[in-house]
Structures are given as structure tokens and as C-alpha cells.
């Protein structure tokens, strides 16, 4: 028999629709064919899997078809890529998986792969007789789920269903009420074992997010369409408050939903919103941060942190705070700053500060945190903050969010902080603000905004941005990051805010959507303070803040923990303060370092200005600090320390994230930040207290 040329499209239905249906329903909605899909007969799966095979070689096509049919799959074959695409387009939910050859005359297999990935988001398996590493790599980079070498054996085809399940599983995470993120979180990532618990759901969500970055967008098209929820500021604030309250570790969508108590809001909405804050690429960031924070808190040198920082923070607390500060700093410094929208930092800060709800003075709390994170606060401020901080009880627990960032930070606190300093850390405030996170962020007067802590000094403001920038995972979905990390920079401030350009930038380089979603206001633009670095995102050490997120090292650049404070320059008027880090690098593991010498507000780790606290954390970030914010830069003058203040709305989240990440990062010398931040008296004075 001759297989004629031309298009060959034949569909062989192996399974009765019922089985298909059931499979589909099990799969969560295959949609097509099958019909109802309500029964979901699990044991029939993967029977009825709908496979589309594309290969210009008729012999191979026949063989594949027979093999797939023998696996009880429903096979449709095409010998032209265009035909395959039109099939897929006509019947959006008609297929579960696509198998395509690489070399095809009418269209390159990788091109087809891209099209499918974009338009339909189906798992695609590539095949070729070519087994050279480069081609296989190309498949991977183009997003293929798998790569089969010809001749294909039936055994290889039997397991293709796993790709479908995997993909759906990720999609479900967002949608399924029962399969809430909380449930699925077995810490799958080996490296985060330690922080498994904490970053647990973050991880999952992150993972899922990573994989389904587009899936969310595709939600609408998928069978699990959900009405989109508009996250208003208020709603976001509620969300952030809930997250803070729970602690980043426990902030699972289910619980967040419960806490928020918003009628009509579903768990899925929360889950997807939560995911937006997770840096796409940095799923590990949070984990790492947590680890880092954990470690810091554990290793906090009692009192090392700062003299001013927290006075005597409960040892743990203090340390944590320092961590936070450091972490944030580190994050900021890690060069990702660019990426992190200032808002993230603000968020972080906020988170950190948030911890101390009880802080006595609103400002104080944040201050402390700020310090930790950004360590730019001046000692005196720290003291204040510390007290608050300390009071905040739960340091340890709140530390979850961000080391050093009092999780309890109430928005209000941020507000206060904000006021004190001029942080108009608008920088990514938007993100933060939008998030509604801590209420204060938004409203605050430009300076005051989130950076509550900022009061301390302008540097604070800087901090925030730094953080945010840092925090923002590069490239990844940093939405969360932006928010989180952005120390709530008051959006309002836009003007002066630290130039968190980091935030905004959806940093092309990193890929983290810096503030992309968050709409981070361009802080950079505004304030000259930060020396305009405009976009922190790029690792441009704008102000010293190194955009790299070093905090999480792994994420970004290998261990570049530079908390990028450098870039923080963002609105940090106080640049000098903040950016010290860069130099330091070594000890703090980078992030902290940026803070070197006093100015560095952030230098979470490296610079011990005070030396004391910081010592520890920075391990992880040591050295890297690409972000080493050059403190000097910070001095740009525009004291936007206030930037930090504002952020706090988001800080909580940010803090949480940072913290998480920190934890992972061990060695973040956040501890140091404390001392460094602002202790040296750099611009702290300017901070509006």
C-alpha cells in the first residue's frame, strides 16, 4: 500500500467517548470530545488521551499511529505542520498532547512548537532521528516537554500522558478549589528542603507559575475559565494583610481566602494573585530567602545586628530583622534591584516592618525593619524601630516574611514610617500600592508612603527601592516580587522615589517582570535621588544597587547576592546610604554588602558597618553584590528615603518573600545590614522621622 503524499489526516478514535470523557474530566477539563467529563474514571486514564502526531514521513507516521493506538490513545495524524495547527485551532480543546517531528518541509518543528505553546499551551513532544545535544537543547529551550529520538519505541509513547498530567496539574493549582496550593505542596524541590515548609506553598505556586506562566492568561481559554478578579487596592491590601498575618510560610490561598473573607472571591483567585508575586523565575527565591532568613535568624548574632537596630531585639528577632534588612538589601543589591521594583523592596520592608505590629511607634517598627533590610536607617531610628520591632513579638514568626522585616508590620506602621522619611518611594509602590497591600503604602504622602521605616532616613527610602528591586526576580514573574520586594514605595511619590527603576523594569534582561504588572511607577523617573537609575532592573548598578537579585543567588546569577542595593539608587536619595553595599560583598554574601560603610543602608550583609550584626548573613551573598549599591550614588541627593516608607504595603509580602529567600540563601548577611544601614550616619539624618 502506498501512503500517498499530501496531507494525511485521519483520526482514529480508540476509545469510546465515555472513556475519553472520563479521562478528560479526570484531567480537569479536557473539554473536547468526551462530553461531560464528570465521572472521571481514573483507572481508564490515560486511555483516550488525544494525541496529534505531526510528521512528514509517512512511514513514521503510520508506525506512530499504530503504536499510539496500541497504547489506547486517540490518534490524529498530520503530515503537514500547517494542517496540524489548523486542527488545533479549530478544536482548541480537542487534543491533549502533540507529537511533532523536528524536520519538516513546510515548517520547522520548533516553530510549530512555539505556536502551539503560545496559542494552545499543550504539551508538545519533539521527535527526530537527530540526537545531537544541540538539537535536543533547542527542544528544551523552545519549551518541548520531551524529546524522543527516532526510531521511537512504543515504550516511549506509553508514558507521554505524564506530560499532560503534569501540565494540567499546574493549571489546576490555580483553579481547583480542592487542589489548593496548600495541598500540593510537598516540597518538591530538593534544595529547599530546609525551607520546604515555608516556601512550601510558595514553591508550588511558583513552580506552577513558572510552568504556567501563560497558563494563567490562558485560563480564560482553558476549560477552567474563571471570571477574572480585579484586584483593587483595597482587595490587595486585604490580601497582603492576610498574608502578613499568616506569615509567609503559611500563606496558602485557602487560608488567605478565609482571612480576607471577601464574598465572591475564590481560592483560585487568591492563588493566582499570590502567584503573581512570585517571581517567575525565582521560584526559588522565596525559598531561598526563607532559608536565608531562617538561617540568619538562627545565627543572628545577638545584638550583632545593630546597635541601633533593634536594640535588643529578641535575639531572634533582632537577628531576623537584621536579616530582613540584609536580605532586602541583599536582594536589592543583588543586582536584581533593577529588577525589583522599588515597590518590592517596599513591600519587603513593609513586611519586615509589619512584623512589629506592636511597635510602639509606628515608625519605629518600620524603622527597624528598614534597617534590616536596608540598613540604612540611622541608628537612632533603629532604636526606635527596634523597640517596635521587638515588640512585635513574633519576630520569629513574622520573620517569615522577611527577615528583618517585621511581618507584623502593619500598614499603618508603614505609614508612619513613611511619613517620617521622605521616601517617596514610589517606586514600585505601585506595585505595592496596587496591591493594596498595606494600606499605607498608597496613601501615604509621597514621602511617607510605605516606607514607614523610612522615617529614619532618606536612606530608608532607598532601601525600599532597593529591596524591591532586588527582590524582584529577574525576569520572572516578578509580580509578586515587585510587590513584595518593593518596599512600599509610595507611589505617590513617584517623583522622588527611588529610582526604582528596578521595579519597573520588566527587566528585559532578567526576565523578571519587574513591576511589570505592578505597574510600578517609575520611580526612577522621579527622584533624582537615586540617581536616576532608572531602571534598576538592569543590573546596572545604578545607584549602587545592583540589580541582581542576588539574594537568591541561585536565581539570578549564580550567587549574586548582591542585593543590588546598588541599584537601589532608585530613589534613594540617600544613596550613599544604601549603597554601600557594593563594596562589601564579601561577607554578607553580597547583599548586605552593599551597604558597606555606613551608607549602605542596605547592605544587608556585607558591610558591616557596624560590623556586628552583619557578619553572618552575608555568606550567601557575599561577593556577589553586583548590586553593590554604591552608596555614593545614593547620595544623589534626592533623598528619597522616603521611598522606603511607602512600600510597606507590600513589604509584608516582600518581606515574606525575602525572608523566604533568605532562608534559602544562607549566608545572607543580613545581619549586618542592620548595623550598616544607616548607622553610619549617612543620610539618615535626612530621613524624615
Amino acid at each position, binding site marked *: *500500500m*502506498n*501512503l500517498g503524499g499530501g496531507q494525511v489526516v485521519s483520526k482514529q478514535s480508540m476509545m469510546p467517548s465515555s472513556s475519553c470523557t472520563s479521562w478528560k474530566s479526570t484531567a480537569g477539563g479536557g473539554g473536547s470530545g468526551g462530553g461531560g467529563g464528570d465521572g472521571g474514571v481514573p483507572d481508564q486514564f490515560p486511555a483516550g488521551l488525544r494525541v496529534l502526531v505531526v510528521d*512528514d*514521513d*509517512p*512511514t*513514521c507516521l*503510520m*508506525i506512530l499511529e*499504530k*503504536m499510539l493506538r*496500541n497504547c489506547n490513545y486517540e490518534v490524529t495524524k498530520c503530515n503537514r505542520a500547517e494542517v496540524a495547527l489548523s486542527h488545533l485551532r479549530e478544536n482548541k480543546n480537542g487534543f491533549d498532547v502533540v507529537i511533532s*517531528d523536528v*524536520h519538516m518541509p513546510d515548517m520547522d518543528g520548533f516553530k510549530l512548537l512555539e505556536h502551539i505553546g503560545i496559542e494552545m499551551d499543550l504539551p508538545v513532544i519533539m521527535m*527526530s*532521528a*537527530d540526537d545531537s545535544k544541540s538539537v535536543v537543547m533547542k527542544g528544551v529551550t523552545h519549551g518541548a516537554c520531551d524529546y524522543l529520538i*527516532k*526510531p*521511537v*519505541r*512504543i515504550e516511549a509513547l506509553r508514558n507521554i500522558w505524564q506530560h499532560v498530567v503534569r501540565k494540567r496539574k499546574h493549571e489546576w493549582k490555580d483553579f481547583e478549589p480542592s487542589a489548593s496550593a496548600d495541598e500540593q505542596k510537598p516540597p518538591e524541590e530538593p534544595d529547599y528542603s530546609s525551607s520546604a515548609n515555608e516556601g512550601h506553598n510558595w514553591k508550588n505556586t511558583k513552580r506552577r507559575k513558572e510552568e504556567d506562566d501563560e497558563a494563567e492568561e490562558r485560563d480564560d481559554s482553558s476549560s477552567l475559565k474563571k471570571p477574572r478578579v480585579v484586584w483593587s487596592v483595597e482587595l490587595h491590601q486585604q490580601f497582603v494583610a492576610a498574608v502578613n498575618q499568616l506569615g509567609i510560610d503559611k500563606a496558602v490561598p485557602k487560608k488567605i481566602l478565609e482571612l480576607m473573607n471577601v464574598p465572591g472571591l475564590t481560592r483560585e483567585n487568591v492563588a493566582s494573585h499570590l502567584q503573581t508575586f512570585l517571581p517567575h523565575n525565582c521560584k526559588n527565591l522565596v525559598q531561598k530567602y526563607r532559608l536565608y532568613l531562617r538561617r540568619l535568624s538562627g545565627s543572628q548574632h545577638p545584638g550583632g545586628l545593630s546597635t541601633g537596630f533593634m536594640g535588643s531585639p529578641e535575639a531572634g528577632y533582632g537577628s531576623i530583622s537584621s536579616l530582613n534588612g540584609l536580605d532586602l538589601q541583599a536582594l536589592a543589591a543583588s543586582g536584581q534591584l533593577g529588577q525589583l521594583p522599588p515597590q518590592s523592596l517596599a513591600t519587603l520592608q513593609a513586611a519586615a516592618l509589619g512584623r512589629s505590629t506592636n511597635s510602639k511607634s509606628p515608625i519605629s517598627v518600620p524603622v527597624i525593619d528598614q534597617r534590616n533590610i536596608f540598613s540604612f536607617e540611622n541608628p537612632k531610628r533603629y532604636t526606635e524601630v527596634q523597640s517596635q520591632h521587638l515588640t512585635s513579638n513574633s519576630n520569629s514568626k513574622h520573620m517569615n516574611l522577611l527577615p528583618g522585616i517585621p511581618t507584623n508590620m502593619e500598614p499603618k506602621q508603614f505609614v508612619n514610617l513613611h511619613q517620617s522619611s521622605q521616601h517617596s518611594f514610589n517606586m514600585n509602590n505601585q506595585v505595592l500600592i496596587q496591591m493594596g497591600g498595606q494600606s499605607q503604602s498608597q496613601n501615604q504622602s509621597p514621602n511617607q508612603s510605605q516606607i514607614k521605616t523610612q522615617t529614619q532616613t532618606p536612606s530608608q527610602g532607598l532601601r525600599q527601592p532597593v529591596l524591591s528591586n532586588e527582590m524582584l526576580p529577574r525576569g520572572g514573574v516578578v509580580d509578586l516580587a515587585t510587590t513584595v520586594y518593593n518596599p512600599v514605595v509610595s507611589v505617590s511619590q513617584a517623583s522622588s522615589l527611588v529610582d526604582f527603576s528596578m521595579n519597573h523594569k520588566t527587566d528585559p534582561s532578567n526576565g523578571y517582570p519587574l513591576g511589570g504588572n505592578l505597574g510600578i511607577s517609575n520611580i526612577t523617573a522621579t527622584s533624582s535621588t537615586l540617581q536616576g537609575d532608572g531602571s534598576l532592573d538592569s543590573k546596572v548598578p545604578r545607584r549602587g544597587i545592583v540589580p541582581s537579585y542576588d539574594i537568591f543567588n541561585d536565581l539570578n546569577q549564580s550567587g549574586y547576592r548582591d542585593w543590588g542595593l546598588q541599584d537601589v539608587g532608585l530613589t534613594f536619595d540617600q544613596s550613599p546610604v544604601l549603597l554601600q553595599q557594593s563594596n562589601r560583598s564579601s561577607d554578607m554574601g553580597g547583599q548586605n554588602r552593599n551597604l558597606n560603610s555606613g551608607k549602605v543602608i542596605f547592605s544587608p550583609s556585607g558591610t558591616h558597618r557596624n560590623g556586628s550584626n552583619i557578619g553572618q548573613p552575608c555568606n550567601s551573598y557575599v561577593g556577589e553584590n553586583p548590586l553593590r549599591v554604591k552608596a555614593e550614588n545614593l547620595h544623589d541627593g534626592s533623598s528619597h528615603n522616603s521611598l522606603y516608607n511607602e512600600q510597606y504595603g507590600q513589604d509584608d509580602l516582600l518581606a515574606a518573600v525575602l525572608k523566604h529567600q533568605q532562608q534559602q540563601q544562607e549566608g545572607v548577611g543580613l545581619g549586618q545590614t542592620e548595623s550598616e544601614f544607616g548607622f553610619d550616619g549617612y543620610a539618615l539624618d535626612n530621613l524624615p522621622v
Partner: protein
Amino acid sequence: MEQSHIKKQINFIKNSLFEQGYLDEQFIQLEDLQDDANPNFVEEIVTSFYSDSTRLIRNVENALENYPLDFCKLDDYMHQFKGSSSSIGAKKVKVECTHFQECCKARNSQGCIRAFQQMKQEHATLKRKLEAYFQISRNE
């Protein structure tokens, strides 16, 4: 007896094809796919292969007549050929395709031509043997 004799013959031929390296494990995969729903599956596949590969061979011959040789195109043809011959388990044919591809990479025109001749030969030999094999199998 007749039947078992034929069966033995079939097995003998098949085994020799394997032993001599004409066929490899993929052929067994194809045979495993054969079932009551598709009793002549393997033969169908092989037939399809030969008709498709004949076309390819013609293309290669044409390409080899154009000087200077377009090695890229030739490599591409060989890639396709390799893919389909490996799918049916045509071991020797596949080996010759690889040789051809190597010559293409080396931009060795003479080498290409030689390799092509070898390939054609193996291709034809296998065809003969398989035809005989199927013939006997059908008689079973």
C-alpha cells in the same frame, strides 16, 4: 508440518536477517504492533517505506547531478532517509545514511557519491530479502 516447516523457514530467514545486521530491534517493535486488527502491519509499513524511499533516492540522485553539490540539501535528504529507515529497523541502510551524512559534513563529493551507491545497494538488498520474507510469511 507444512505449516511448522514454513514457520521454521520464516524464523530462519528472519533470524538471518537479524544476524547479518540487515534488521535491528525496531523491526521487532513493528512485529509486536501487528495484531489481528492489522495482520499485515509490518508488510504495510515496509511497503510504505520503499515507496517513499524510492522517491527520496530519486531526489538524491538528482541532487548529486548538480555540481557543485548542495551538501546541505543532501544532508537533509539523508536525515529523512535515516529517520524512515531506522523506523523500520533497516540497520545497514541506516549505517550507510550516516556515512553519507558524514561525507556531506566533510563536503566530500566523492565520498558522498560512494556512500550513496552503498546505500542504494543496501536498500535494494534489504528490499529483496524482506519481500522474500513476507512472501513466505503470507504463505504460512
